[in-house]
């Protein structure tokens, strides 16, 4: 019951902060309006110890006791300010976040700039929803990049949500933190099925799976290098002559019409189907095949290369999800 009350209160606070701060852009400077600070568990313990020492000093009218207590209390005050100042002025810029497969850990790339004149130590970043934290120091005038991890459970867009930037430097007596509401998201591809059936047979005029394996030997012509082409297929000699990278094209692979079709998957569960399709895309790419993707209401023409693969994976990731067309 206490836990639920606490959760309720916490949620109210988050909502309040969110309304108050509004949506953030791609670049945020942590100013005093958005930095919060509270004593830590150690801070409360320290405070209670100081109170005890103060009472003892009062009881014995001990001047040096008073002095020591007040020095330690002053240290508490300055620790509070130092902790706040450790965050204040820090600048955070969103980076580019690589896509991941469901079940992996997404990494949100953030660039930190310290425009101040002293090192900011022990700055931690984490997703409010996640449980992992990255911590580091940034020297005066320096910058650094961090990858905030967040577990990607499902395919589709994974939003970081509330980003927590915090520090308890110097004495861990206080924890100051800032909530950043950037629009940060990572594309999560479906989880590739481990037990996927083999690739479907090519449909084209030649047919027959054996052609696929022979394709490597049946060199037909050269074309420009596309990112994602296997280095094994680069025509090094010809490239050296023409001064640009050329990739060998093979008769077998090039002409096979290999369709990865939603309807060909012998599985009822749509997510499972997507998983199998995802595995097929990866396998086909790894085998350097040309392939197309057929989904209900969506067809991607036959092609090859990394860009094509990414395009296919993206379609799988966003298939029939609300808001899939955004971006």
């Amino acid at each position, binding site marked *: 019951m206490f836990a639920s009350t606490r959760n309720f209160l916490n949620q109210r606070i988050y909502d309040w902060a969110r309304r108050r701060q509004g949506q953030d852009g791609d670049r945020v400077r942590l100013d005093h309006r958005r930095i919060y600070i509270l004593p830590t568990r150690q801070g409360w313990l320290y405070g209670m110890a100081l109170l005890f020492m103060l009472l003892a000093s009062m009881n014995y009218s001990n001047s040096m006791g008073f002095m020591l207590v007040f020095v330690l209390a002053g240290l508490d005050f300055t620790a509070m300010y130092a902790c706040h100042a450790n965050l204040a002025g820090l600048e955070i810029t969103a980076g580019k976040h690589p896509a991941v497969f469901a079940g992996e850990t997404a990494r949100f790339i953030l660039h930190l700039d310290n425009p101040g004149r002293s090192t900011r*130590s022990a700055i931690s970043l984490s997703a409010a929803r996640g449980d992992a934290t990255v911590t580091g120091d940034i020297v005066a005038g320096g910058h650094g990049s961090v990858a905030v991890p967040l577990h990607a459970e499902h395919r589709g867009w994974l939003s970081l949500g509330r980003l927590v930037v915090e520090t308890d430097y110097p004495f861990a007596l206080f924890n100051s933190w800032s909530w950043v509401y950037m629009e940060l998201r990572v594309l999560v591809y479906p989880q590739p099925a481990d037990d996927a059936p083999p690739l479907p047979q090519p449909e084209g005029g030649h047919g027959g799976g054996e052609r696929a394996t022979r394709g490597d030997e049946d060199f037909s012509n050269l074309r420009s290098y596309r990112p994602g082409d296997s280095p094994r297929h680069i025509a090094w000699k010809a490239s050296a002559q023409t001064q640009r990278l050329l990739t060998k094209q093979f008769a077998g692979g090039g002409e096979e019409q290999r369709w990865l079709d939603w309807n060909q998957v012998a599985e009822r569960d749509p997510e499972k189907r997507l998983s199998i399709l995802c595995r097929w895309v990866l396998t086909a790419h790894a085998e350097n095949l040309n392939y197309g993707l057929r989904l209900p209401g969506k067809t991607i023409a036959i092609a090859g290369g990394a860009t094509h693969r990414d395009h296919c994976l993206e379609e799988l990731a966003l298939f029939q999800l609300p808001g899939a067309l955004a971006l």
Partner: protein
Amino acid sequence: MNAVLPANPEPHLERTRLLWTLAALAAMTLPHALHLAPWIVLTAALIALWRLGVVYFGWPLFSRYTRIAFGVLAFVGVYATYHTFNGPQAGTALLILLAGLKLMEARGLRDYFLLLVITLIIGITNFFYDQTIPLAIYMVPAVWLAGTALLNIAHPDTGQSPLTSAKTSARLLLSALPVALVLFLLFPRIPGPLWSLTLPQHSAVTGLSTSMSPGSLSRLAQSDAIAFRVKFLNAAPPRAQRYWRALVLHDYDGQTWTPGNIMWDGSDTLSARGAPVNYQITLQPNHLRVLYALDLPAQGPANTRLTADYELLTPHPVTELRLYSASSYTDYRYGLDIPAWELRRDMRLPSGIDPRARQLAQSWRASAAAPGQIVEDALHMFHQQPFRYTLQPGVLSGPNRIDEFLFVTRSGFCEHYASAFVFLMRAAGIPAHVVIGYQGGTRNPVDGYYTVRQEDAHAWTEVWLAGQGWVRVDPTAAVDPARVDQGLAAALPGEAIPGYFFNAHPWVGQLRNAWDALNNGWNQWILAYGPELQSRLFAGLGMTYGNWLQLVLVLLVAIGAILMLVWLVLWWRHRAPRPSGVQRDYLRFCRKLANCGLTRSASEGPLDYAQRVSHVRPDLAVSVRSISALYMNLRYADSGDARAFARLVHAFRP
């Protein structure tokens, strides 16, 4: 509990935490080795060494049962040593052993933090034994070390060198000092203890006690410890008038004089002549409920009570240095209207003892015309007959001690003379009592304060004469006038009294004066800082003291001002650097574009921005591209003409 401990998270972090904690703990515990039973500090040291062995040589950690056994043994040991768990000594011993116990199982931030908090409390207990300058100096690096330890315990992983973290903690401690100073000056000090005081059992407290028996004052005369210091606000009275009154002793049991039960506590009118003597006293802890005052005090500080005997009493024993002001009259009369039944208390004697003294007193009474004559007779006897004033009077035994002294040994210290004199007066029917306190005091030429030492402890008497009230009579002065006029050293030239050495070698005496003056300043301004000095500070600021609301308000305002200052300093340190001239010009260029609707977004680099602008406004493309290119060169390649850039921006008209 031990089963769920995380398996040593990161060994090198734990090592950092352990080493720093041990260093701070050792620094704070070391002074306690001087006054605690040796086994306590030794035990803690052995545990610390074992913990180091665990880290460096892989020795086994303490099992749960070892720890429980140790905890029980620690309590038993402390109780066996001090017979209590209460009071600073047993408390400190328990704290140190508790630190040892925690050290056995410490692991992770929380444990080491707790250890450091215990360390700080151990640190403050040092001051309950000793508040002298040397300890205060010792504590400065100790606190610094503790602060650095705290920093390293909280963040063992920042990779800072010990020197860097020491610098960081020094900076934080230095900025804490203004707050500390303001709190020290303005935090409301309340007089008296909050709960019962249990004081460190000082093995040999030298000072007055509340009774007087033969030998009690001559023992004090062996000590040159300082009893109190006096600052006269106007002219100091001559030495022969500097009688510092402590207690009046009424009852005699044949050996010991005691204050007795106070039967009458009515008001008395003091008729004084001359100007009052105003002075401030810094009293060393005397563990009595008595403040000393110049004979005869007319007014004492707040929270004290002036009894009908003109004793200055406080509600609680003086256990810390105490500063107070008082005023006295050296030319006075008191006790004129005291009721007769009250006087009878000061005429009682234990029956059946000292027959010869009684006989002598009766003979004086028979021959004297007035009571004053009897007083004269007694003083005359001390003066004329071979009475000796000495620190080694020999031991009086048997039931008739007064007789033995008056007629056999005839050598004694002030308590013998005072005792015998009051006995004689009472036997002759004159009300009399003993007064104990101090007499004399030496001016320290360095700071002008008068230092009164334990060796100045003295006993004198007061007799009641009709029409004059209580009159001070000092029989010691009749035996040896030098005691009162010049002090103990002059009165006892051959005897080994403590000040002898300093009088024989003047330069050593000067050194001692300088050190005394330094200590006195420390005492005056720091140790004795309490309600008295605080009210004076407030008066100096033009405020009335004693209004709690006002005190708290002043404190809050002062703290607020200081926090503001700290904030400003930190803000200054962390502020963004001023944009360079080139950056300012570029920002102006961006503003010009923003004015026609082409605002640069926060995440947009200059080249992206230029491309977007050129796309939307092809007419501006050339100038925008050249300005941006020049800016990139100036800013990142450090090449190009900044003035030309400024001119371009200035001429740019979108």
